């Protein structure tokens, strides 16, 4: 785990080598011995590539989070792992509900494929450049993104033969 100083160093190096000259790192956070970089969404691909160059070559997890009621609400979290030094670092992107677009990292990291689809399915984050962005766990015709914090628990009719037409809104 990079300590607080090591995390700042990584953040500085990322700022210094940004291709468009803009600092991709918005914030660094050191919590419970683990470092997190909050980055601009435009910079996610380059940040992950640069971290790969620093040894973080294994993307162990991609998952979504909803910060309701804070804005920007949606977050995508990338857990990177350096297998040689056994060191983990977390990269995070936050987007608003109005414009929930993040560049997909699936072309560079094949493991992100299913996991980005799950984040899209559950939170409605659209991953631009994903080869096959479809729902993965919920049915294809499902409406809404159930892991959002303002999505109610329960209240959905369970469809049986006797209430099929009623629940689906179809003619008998």
């Amino acid at each position: 785990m990079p300590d607080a100083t090591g995390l700042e160093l990584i953040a500085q190096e990322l700022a210094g080598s940004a291709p468009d000259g803009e600092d991709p790192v918005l914030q660094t956070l050191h919590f419970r011995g683990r470092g997190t970089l909050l980055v601009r969404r435009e910079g996610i691909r380059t940040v992950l590539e640069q971290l790969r160059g620093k040894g973080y070559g294994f993307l162990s997890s991609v998952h979504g989070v909803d910060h309701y009621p804070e804005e920007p609400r949606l977050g995508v979290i990338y857990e990177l792992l350096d297998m040689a030094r056994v060191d983990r670092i977390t990269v995070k992107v936050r987007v608003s509900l109005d414009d929930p677009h993040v560049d997909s990292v699936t072309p560079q990291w094949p493991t992100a494929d299913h996991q980005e689809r799950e984040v899209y399915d559950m939170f409605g984050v659209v991953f631009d450049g994903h080869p096959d962005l479809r729902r993965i766990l919920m049915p294809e015709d499902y409406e809404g993104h159930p892991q959002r914090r303002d999505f109610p628990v329960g209240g959905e009719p369970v469809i049986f033969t006797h209430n099929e037409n009623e629940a689906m809104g179809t003619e008998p």
Partner: protein
Amino acid sequence: MSGQPTMSEYRRREQSITLSPVEEQVDTSQELLTLNFGPHHPATHGVLRLLVTLQGELVRDVKPIIGYVHTGIEKTAEDKAYWKVIPVIERMDYLSYYFNSMAFCGAVETLLEVEVPRRAQYLRVIHMELNRIMSHLVWLGTSALDLGAISMFWYCFREREKILDLFEMSSGQRMHTRYFQVGGVIEDIPDGFAAKLAGFLKEMPGRADQYGALLNKNEIVLQRLRGTCPLDADSLLALGVTGPLLRAAGYPWDLRKADPYCCYEEFDFKIPVGTVGDNYDRYAVRLAEMYESVKIATQALEGLPEGPHITEDRKVALPPRHELATSMEALIHHFKLVTEGFRVPPGEVYFPIESPRGELGCFVRSDGSSKPARVHMRDPSFVNLQATSKMVEGSYIADMIATLAMLDPVLGGIDR
């Protein structure tokens, strides 16, 4: 009609059938056929559906379709106090319930900065390693069934029953035991558990020897597994595959060794690895892991430290039952814990452990209340499943069945 025996209707129809090949212009060897495989199929180990594109008997493409047992456990967890999340989270990957609760409890303990007593950590190790053997036994039995060996199933489930008996002894439940709690384990092991466990640990290596003797040089097993559907370590790492599948390709990555949690650094064990990463290596690595798990559990039982089995922090763990009759403070703590639960400082934590299938990571985000704001399981089966098409492309459909068995996916964990 004169003297000739009359031909029955059946015989006449039979004679009219021509077995000569159908003359067609299409080259059938080049034709692609898309076949739906599952979701209800005994070889899919649950409700997994595969869209398989075949050219003759060769698999050209596989698309896994999942979500049939999605029950929204992550969503349910957000509506429950932290300690009530444990029972639902155990039901994700239903073959490795101790691991699910370990990942979750570990994440919450990191957030709370609670220290877990050493006796509790050792008890956790014992139960997790028993669970690993149990999970591998179910895998071995069902996989052998896929390859046509039915007796292996009975042998494996015979040993599995003994492990479940032990679980029942320590917690009262055979599956989904809710034994691990935030801060330790719910109860100390009962009298007689240690002796029964020692007996099992003594017996198990001999049983594993028998499985090896039945399968290792079995002609059918060799033909079905050796050299089929290999995948190199670099491709596996790019696809995020961990656990026995990665180790079978010769990459010795095991979180118990690399990034020890729960006192694993105190035990002496080896990481079995394969060489080429074919199905036979995947089989051999898991079989070898059972011996290592027995070794770890034996050491943990012999070196089991004395002391409390759960943290003394009354803000997190329930007070002992006998205190409730005499101590007002204990009663208040008990009431607060049971009604509201404990509050967890705000923050986000990702806690990875080595489950029987690979890296099982639990992400918990707390907003400072007594219910988690987000619980996510990075389930190894979910990630490993992405490697299926890479593994089986270009091989025979029969090898796809064997590969699916060796992949060891648990759909409860995939769909959550």
